[in-house]
C-alpha cells in the first residue's frame, strides 16, 4: 500500500462538486481510475480540473468545498493497491 | 405644462487631485447639475483642442473630468497647471452645441429583465416587489404606470459615457425638484441583460453588453449602443453610438414594435431615428418643459 497526493496546481478556491446542486466528484472510500476528475480549482472565474494521478481509493479529502488552497497544497490523498 | 425654471448652479472651487503619477482628476462639484456637466464638457473640449503632447486620455464625467498622460513626456504638475489655465479661460455662458436627439424605443417590464431581477431578489432592497414597483413607491408615485410616465415625459441628456464601452449615463432634463432618485442594488448583480434600461442615483443608463450591474432595471431597448464590428448603420464613425451632449428620448413600445425593431437591427437595416438641433443652455434653463417640447417636435415631425 502506498499513498499518492493530489496537489492544487495553482492558488484558488477548491471545489468538490461540479456545481452547488450536484453531488461531489468523490467521497472518501471511492475507487478512482487514473485521470478521473476528483475536484476543481477556480481562479479568475476559470476552473481547472484536478485529476487522479493514479488508480486507487480516496483515503482523505483535506479541504472543504470552496476552501482556499495554495499551489502545491495536498488536497486529496489516494491509496494505491 | 409646468412653467418651472432650472436655477443656475453656482459651482464651488474645482478640486484638483493627482491619480498616481499619470492621471489628474478634477471634481467640479460633489453634486450633479447641468452646470457642472456642461462645464466638464466645455473644459474637456478645450483640452482636446490644445492637443497637449503627452496627454493620452481626456474623459469628461458627470460633474468631473479626468486626464491620463505619459509622465515621461509631461510632468504631473505641468498637466495640473495647464488644466487650471484652461479652466480659467473657459466660460460656459456662451457655450452651446449641436446636439442629436435620438428616439430610443423601450419595452418596459420586459420578460428578460424581469427574469433577471427575480433571480437577484436577495440583493435588492425589497425582495417582495419589482425594481419598478420599488422605484415608483420611493419617488411618491401611486403606480408603476405613473412612474414610467414621468420617466419618459422628458428626455434624458447623455452626461457621461463609460463603465464599459458605449454605456451612456443620462440625466433627465427637468428641474431638480422633478427629478427622481433611486439607490443602486444593495449588492451588485452578476448578470444584467444587454440593452437593459437601468436607473441609479439620478441617472438612467443603457447597458451595452450582458454583464454585472447594480442599477434598478426597468426595461429593454431593441436598439444597440455598441457595435464593435461597426457594421450597423450609425456606427460608421465609432463603435459607440451615444456621445456626451446627445439627448435620448425614451419611448414606450409594445412587444410587437419591440420585436419588429429588433428584427431590423439584427438584419442590419435599422436606421436610428435622430434629429439635430443647436442646444442653447440658457433657453433650456429658462423654460425646460417648453424647450423639451420643441426638441420632441424636431425629432418626431
Amino acid at each position, binding site marked *: 500500500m502506498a499513498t499518492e497526493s493530489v496537489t492544487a496546481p495553482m492558488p484558488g478556491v477548491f471545489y468538490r462538486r461540479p456545481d452547488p446542486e450536484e453531488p461531489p466528484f468523490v467521497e472518501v472510500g471511492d475507487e478512482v481510475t487514473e485521470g478521473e476528475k476528483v475536484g476543481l480549482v477556480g481562479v479568475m472565474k476559470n476552473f481547472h480540473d484536478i485529476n487522479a494521478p493514479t488508480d486507487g481509493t480516496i483515503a482523505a479529502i483535506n479541504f472543504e468545498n470552496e476552501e482556499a488552497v495554495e499551489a502545491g497544497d495536498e488536497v486529496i490523498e489516494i491509496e494505491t493497491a | 405644462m409646468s412653467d418651472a425654471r432650472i436655477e443656475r448652479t453656482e459651482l464651488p472651487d474645482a478640486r484638483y487631485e493627482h491619480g498616481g503619477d499619470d492621471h489628474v482628476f478634477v471634481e467640479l462639484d*460633489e453634486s*450633479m447639475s447641468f452646470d457642472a456637466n456642461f462645464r466638464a464638457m466645455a473644459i474637456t473640449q478645450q483640452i482636446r483642442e490644445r492637443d497637449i503632447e503627452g496627454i493620452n486620455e481626456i474623459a469628461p464625467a458627470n460633474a468631473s473630468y479626468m486626464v491620463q498622460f505619459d509622465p515621461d513626456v509631461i510632468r504631473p504638475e505641468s498637466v495640473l497647471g495647464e488644466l487650471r489655465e484652461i479652466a480659467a479661460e473657459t466660460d460656459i455662458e456662451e457655450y452651446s452645441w449641436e446636439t442629436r436627439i435620438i428616439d430610443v424605443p423601450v419595452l418596459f417590464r420586459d420578460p428578460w429583465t424581469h427574469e433577471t431581477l427575480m433571480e437577484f431578489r436577495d440583493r435588492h432592497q425589497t425582495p417582495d416587489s419589482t425594481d419598478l414597483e420599488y422605484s415608483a413607491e420611493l419617488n411618491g408615485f401611486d403606480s408603476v404606470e405613473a412612474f414610467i410616465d414621468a420617466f419618459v415625459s422628458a428626455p434624458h441628456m447623455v452626461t457621461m459615457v463609460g463603465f464599459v464601452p458605449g454605456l451612456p449615463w443620462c440625466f433627465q432634463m427637468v428641474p431638480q425638484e422633478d427629478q427622481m432618485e433611486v439607490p443602486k442594488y444593495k449588492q451588485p448583480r452578476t448578470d444584467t441583460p444587454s440593452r437593459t434600461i437601468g436607473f441609479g442615483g439620478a441617472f438612467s443608463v443603457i447597458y451595452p453588453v450582458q454583464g454585472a450591474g447594480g442599477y434598478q432595471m426597468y426595461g429593454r431597448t431593441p436598439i444597440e449602443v455598441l457595435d464593435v464590428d461597426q457594421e450597423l448603420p450609425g456606427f460608421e464613425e465609432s463603435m459607440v453610438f451615444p456621445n456626451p451632449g446627445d439627448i435620448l428620448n425614451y419611448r414606450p413600445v409594445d412587444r410587437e414594435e419591440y420585436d419588429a425593431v429588433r428584427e431590423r437591427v439584427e438584419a442590419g437595416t435599422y436606421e436610428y431615428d435622430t434629429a439635430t438641433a443647436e442646444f442653447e443652455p440658457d433657453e433650456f434653463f429658462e423654460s425646460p418643459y417648453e424647450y423639451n417640447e420643441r426638441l420632441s417636435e424636431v425629432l418626431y415631425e
Partner: protein
Amino acid sequence: MMRILEGGTSTTVQDLGRFGQYHIGMPPSGAMDQFSHRVANALVGNDEDAAALEMTYQGSTIEFTEDAVIALTGAEMPVELDGEPVPMYSAVRVEAGQTLDAEFATEGARTYLAVAGGIDVPEVMGSRSTYTLVGIGGLEGRTLQEGDELPVGDGGADAEAVLGNSVAEERVAGVAPEEGVRVIVGLFDYRLTDESRAELTDAEWTVTPEADRVGYRLEGPELDFVEREQPFGAGTDPSNVVDVGYPIGSIQLPQQPIVVMRDAVTGGGYATVGTVISTDRDVLAQRRTHETVSFEAVTLEEAVEARTARNERLEAIVESLDP
C-alpha cells in the same frame, strides 16, 4: 505560425495598450506588468510595443510551425521546449516543429512570452491588445484555446544577432517583492473616517480569487465612510459619489477595495481613495490569489522618482542587449 495545443488558465495577446478611447468607456488593456513585457520584447530585438503573450498562472502549450526566437520574462514558470528546460530572461532559438510547454507559475502570476517579429494579429484602434469584455484585439478578442493559430511578424526568421541576449539576474525585479505597493492617497480619501484612512495603509490586504485584469479585488478590514447627507445624484450609500472616471490603479471601495487594472471599468459611482503609482501596478499584477499586499503612501515627488528609477533600470537593460 504558433499553434496553440493547450490554452492555459488565461493567455492573451497584449502590447503596451490602446489609448485615446477612455471617454467612450474603452480601457487601455495591454500588459498588466509593463516592465516585464518591455524586457521580453527587448530580449528578442522587438520594438517595445510589439505584441507578446501574457500567460496567467498556467501557461500555454505551443507548437511552432516555423523557426523563431523567443524570450520569457515575468512570473517564474517552468517551461520546456521538447522536454528541455528553457531559461527565462534569455533569447532562445526555437526550431520549426518544436513544442513549448509551460507549467504552472511557481512565483508571480503573469509570464510574458515575446517572439522576434511580434505576434502579428490585426490592430484594433491602434493596438493589438486583447480586451475580452467586448471581444476586441488579440485573437478574436478572447483568451487563447486549443487549435488557435497565431501569425508571427516579419523579422522573426533573421534574428541571429539577438540569440546571445540575456538579462543578468540582479537587473530583474523580483516578481513578488516584500515591500509595499506605493500609492498616492487622494481623490475621495476625505470620505473615510480617520481610523479607516489610517487602516488603508496599515492593513494587510489579501488578493481574492476574483482578482483579474479588470480589477484586483482585495479582502481585509472593513473601512468606514464619514456619514453625510449625500450630494444630489450620488445615490444613498455613503460609499457612493456622483459617477466619476476611475484612474487605472485607483482603489475604489464598494465595500472591500478593488484596484482598477488595465481592463478597467472606466467609471462609476464608488468613492476612490488613492491610486497605485504607475511603476507599482506592475508589482501588483504579479501578486497571486491569497498573497497579501500592503499599501505605502508616497508623495507625488516620490512617485515621479520611482518612475525615473524604473526608466533608468529599463534603459540599462535595453542598452546591454543587442537590438
